[in-house]
């Protein structure tokens, strides 16, 4: 304990900085969260159940979770490819490509939604080729997945990149020396080493997609039962001034997000133990 307290004895501002941190977090984050839960508690248990289990609400959760899952899986494939190429190969304009990976993080979601809906409508740049083939990217469930792929894209790449960089090449060489083919080496040696990072990236992209609103609202068309995600339903309930019902759905959405994050934590710990 003595070593731990050295900084506190020497450096100033411990009370002030910690106090302000707690105060600000309490004011900006905790108070609104508590208010939300209290409002949801305004409803009796039966009313709460009705609000969160209506057919429309269940359709919205299912779509939110389903679209997030599919888009995160797509991102695992695309993100692994891009991360591998960025770390292992040399080619012109690689630096530019690497910087652009973060573009979906930096671009406001409303802009992403606007552009994607314009690209996939009938006379859009992608739509004019896809719509004749019967692929409707705008105002459809596919559109939701597409824009969520864009939003979640950096997560898999950025969690995977440092792990691939840290792989020891001589392990792959050793596998090759022992007679493994390239495919065997990748599947048996490389893949197990990067799997935790892939799972983490997947989960982060999934968690991010669950709450996404700004981009989806432009491209989905927001039709109840078909293309209405949970955050859109919350806004719809708000516009009907059904505050408690909105809060009830929000609580369910939060529960799904928190469970996801908890699962990520457990998974990471489990994997760390099994790799040690």
């Amino acid at each position: 304990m003595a070593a731990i307290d050295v900084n506190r004895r020497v450096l100033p501002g411990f009370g002030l900085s910690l106090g302000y941190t707690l105060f600000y977090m309490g004011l900006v984050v905790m108070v609104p969260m508590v208010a939300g839960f209290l409002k949801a508690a305004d409803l009796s248990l039966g009313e709460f159940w009705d609000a969160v289990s209506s057919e429309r609400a269940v359709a919205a959760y299912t779509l939110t979770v389903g679209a997030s899952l599919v888009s995160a899986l797509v991102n695992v494939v695309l993100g692994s490819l891009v991360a591998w190429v960025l770390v292992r190969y040399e080619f012109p304009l690689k630096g530019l490509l690497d910087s652009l990976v973060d573009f979906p993080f930096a671009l406001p979601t409303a802009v992403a939604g606007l552009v994607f809906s314009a690209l996939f409508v009938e006379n859009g740049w992608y739509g004019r080729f896809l719509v004749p083939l019967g692929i409707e990217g705008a105002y459809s469930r596919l559109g939701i997945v597409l824009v969520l792929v864009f939003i979640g894209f950096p997560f898999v790449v950025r969690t995977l990149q440092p792990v691939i960089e840290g792989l020891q090449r001589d392990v792959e060489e050793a596998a090759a020396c022992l007679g493994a083919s390239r495919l065997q080496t990748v599947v048996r040696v490389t893949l197990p080493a990067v799997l935790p990072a892939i799972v983490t990236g997947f989960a982060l992209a999934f968690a991010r997609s669950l709450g996404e609103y700004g981009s989806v609202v432009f491209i989905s068309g927001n039709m109840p039962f078909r293309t209405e995600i949970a955050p859109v339903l919350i806004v719809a309930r708000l516009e009907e001034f059904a505050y408690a019902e909105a809060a009830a759905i929000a609580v369910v959405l939060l529960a799904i997000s928190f469970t996801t994050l908890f699962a990520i934590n457990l998974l990471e710990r489990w994997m760390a133990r099994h790799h040690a």
Partner: protein
Amino acid sequence: MHDTSNPVRLLRAHEDPPWVRRAFILGAVGVMVALVGVPLVNVFIEAFADGPRVYWENLFHDPDTFHSILLTLMVAPAAVFLNLVFGLAAAWAIARFRFPGRTFLTALIDLPFTVSPVVVGLFLLLLFGRQGFFGEWLQAHDIKIVFAFPGLVIATAFVTFPVVARELIPVMEALGAEEEIAAVSLGARGWQLLRRITLPNIKWALLYGIILSNARAMGEFGAVFVVSGHIAGKTDTMPLRIEKLFQEYNLPGSFAVASVLAMLALVTLGVKTALEWKTRRELAEGKKLRAVAVGGE
């Protein structure tokens, strides 16, 4: 079966074959072009579809759009300032001291990233709205938070508040406290310590934190959407204006506003890349200096 004495064979076995290499590079470039490149170009082409004059008019001659630009230029800095003060305090507490609950607090800082922005807006509405917990009191004292400027700032601050702290904490942890302890032992006091030692040491991380949190703040949609009330010319920020113009089928106007935010995103990325490049060079120079020092001994 395998002739391990042949170096070419061996090389082939631990490098990807050339055709895989080419196919992968092509695939990755294709993904990036389709997912990022084309949308980026599309924003500007759509915005300038009717020529630069119309673009200019869409941005500055539409009073509601112009007001949304001004409003965003006020809301974002206010939220960034709040997060900056918080980020410095949180980083100082977490990176410099050990205390019970430190890990939990660090995890708690990330909380806003996991809450849907719409839910954030809803919770603020439940707190400060007409039927909210403080609704009556606020109305009695004629204070407007929701559907007004303060609500926009609080919603933006909630959604973006981990950004600065998350940039600073790892940098300050990596730097260690030696310099600061030395400064204190030489007689530096609170603000002197901050201004002379800590801030110069973390300036790049701080700058990036500010720029990133500004980009997020200017682009925030979901939370602001709920608390703004969409009063055109009063509480519409730029992202909300994009949505409204989109709903009114005014696509050139919508894309004009979007192009400004896309430029902001590009500038943010540019600064990030430049700062990364700079830190890498400083790191390399540091290593060289250390090598010289060690060699001299």
